[in-house]
């Protein structure tokens, strides 16, 4: 009987040791194979006015309202327009939806601020690569694209950009690669190579405009952060000179935002020189300058629903 007990104990120990070994191997295997994705590079799907690398979660519906007011200072600002609040430069209302954790689509209506107005937008965003905590993947890469159609009445002047000879003249597109890295809990930086294509443009304007954007977030405290976003559109000198000769100088869009996290909500206080909200317009058509007081307050309201 004693021998049987010893035998059973021996077997049990052996099994125990085996189990421990296999658990260790499993844990080791897991840590080797699973590269944890970095979360919350940014709080929202938008940096300030352009896109961030974030996408919605699967089956998440985001109802968004964006607003840009009139000039804070300069000729059209000051107390007479209550620092631009009397005028809405651009407004966007949109529904965006997470098809998977990495793919989101959306539809939106934007007032438009530029040569075209009454804009209907369809967008798609796909997170191709996600940054991992172990730096196996050092950056997050997201692709963004939209197609925009204008519903406005065609101009009767052929030289206007808003003259539509055919339906496709109303269309414009944006394609963007969003490359982002969260360097630490407090610093996230993003590079935004962007191509804007407009099917029909005004005289001496460019159908294709490539722009390099950059932006980021620096958190000063646990709750307070500073956001920055800037685009440099590569427009030909000839085109720039022509617009200047017409009294319409073009500027590079620069936006600054303060992010304040209150626990339940994240408040953004944004200021930028571009009047338009959509990339299709604010990258090629920003004609207001920070230095002339032509910057404005803007805000995004986002309400997410889990379906």
């Amino acid at each position: 009987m004693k021998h049987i007990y010893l035998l059973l104990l021996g077997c049990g120990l052996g099994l125990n040791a085996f189990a421990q070994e296999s658990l260790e191997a499993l844990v080791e295997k897991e840590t080797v194979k699973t590269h944890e994705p970095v979360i919350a590079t940014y709080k929202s799907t938008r940096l300030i006015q352009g896109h961030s690398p974030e996408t919605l979660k699967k089956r998440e519906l985001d109802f968004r309202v964006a607003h840009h007011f009139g000039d804070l200072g300069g000729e059209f600002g000051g107390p007479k327009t209550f620092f631009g609040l009397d005028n809405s430069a651009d407004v966007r209302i949109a529904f965006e939806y997470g098809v998977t954790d990495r793919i989101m689509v959306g539809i939106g209506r934007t007032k438009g601020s530029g040569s075209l107005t009454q804009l209907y937008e369809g967008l798609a965003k796909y997170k191709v690569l996600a940054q991992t905590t172990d730096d196996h993947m050092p950056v997050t890469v997201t692709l963004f694209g939209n197609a925009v159609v204008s519903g406005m009445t065609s101009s009767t002047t052929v030289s206007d950009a808003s003259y539509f000879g055919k339906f496709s003249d109303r269309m414009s597109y944006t394609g963007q690669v969003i490359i982002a890295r969260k360097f630490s809990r407090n610093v996230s930086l993003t590079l935004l190579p962007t191509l804007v294509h407009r099917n029909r443009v005004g005289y001496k304007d460019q159908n294709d405009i490539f722009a390099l954007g950059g932006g980021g977030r620096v958190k000063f405290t646990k709750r307070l952060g500073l956001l920055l976003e800037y685009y440099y559109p590569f427009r030909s000198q000839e085109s720039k000179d022509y617009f200047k000769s017409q009294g319409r100088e073009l500027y590079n869009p620069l936006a600054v935002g303060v992010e304040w996290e209150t626990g339940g909500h994240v408040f953004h206080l944004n200021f930028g020189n571009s009047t338009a909200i959509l990339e299709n317009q604010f990258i090629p058509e920003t004609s207001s300058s920070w230095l002339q007081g032509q910057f404005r307050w803007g805000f995004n309201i986002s309400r997410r629903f889990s379906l």
Partner: protein
Amino acid sequence: MKKPMRATLLPFVLLLFMYSCTAEQAPAPEPGIPPTACDTAVITSTYIMTTISTRCTNGACHKGTGNFVVSDFSTLEKLKTYLNANEALFRERVTSANADMPPRGKLSEGMRDSINCWLNHGMPD
């Protein structure tokens, strides 16, 4: 999204984009009046009111009713009253490069120049 659906949808969307993607540049505009022409140009209130009545008060808008009690352009006097108080706002929304009024398409460049010129001259009759 199921894979077969994605596989069908994506090429379709790409084809649609490729089909609808064109590139056209508008012809050169007709030479407008040089900026200094405003010094000698005679722009009358009647001329401005013709445009206001066809573009601003012809529909339901700016007749002094409903939402348009303040921005009432139904008569020259009322238009001037509004402009005396809100000239900067009017210029930004109607005659500036970023104009968003009238909502169905801004006025022609020539007309915007004329309105600016009329305002610069102090809205002469």
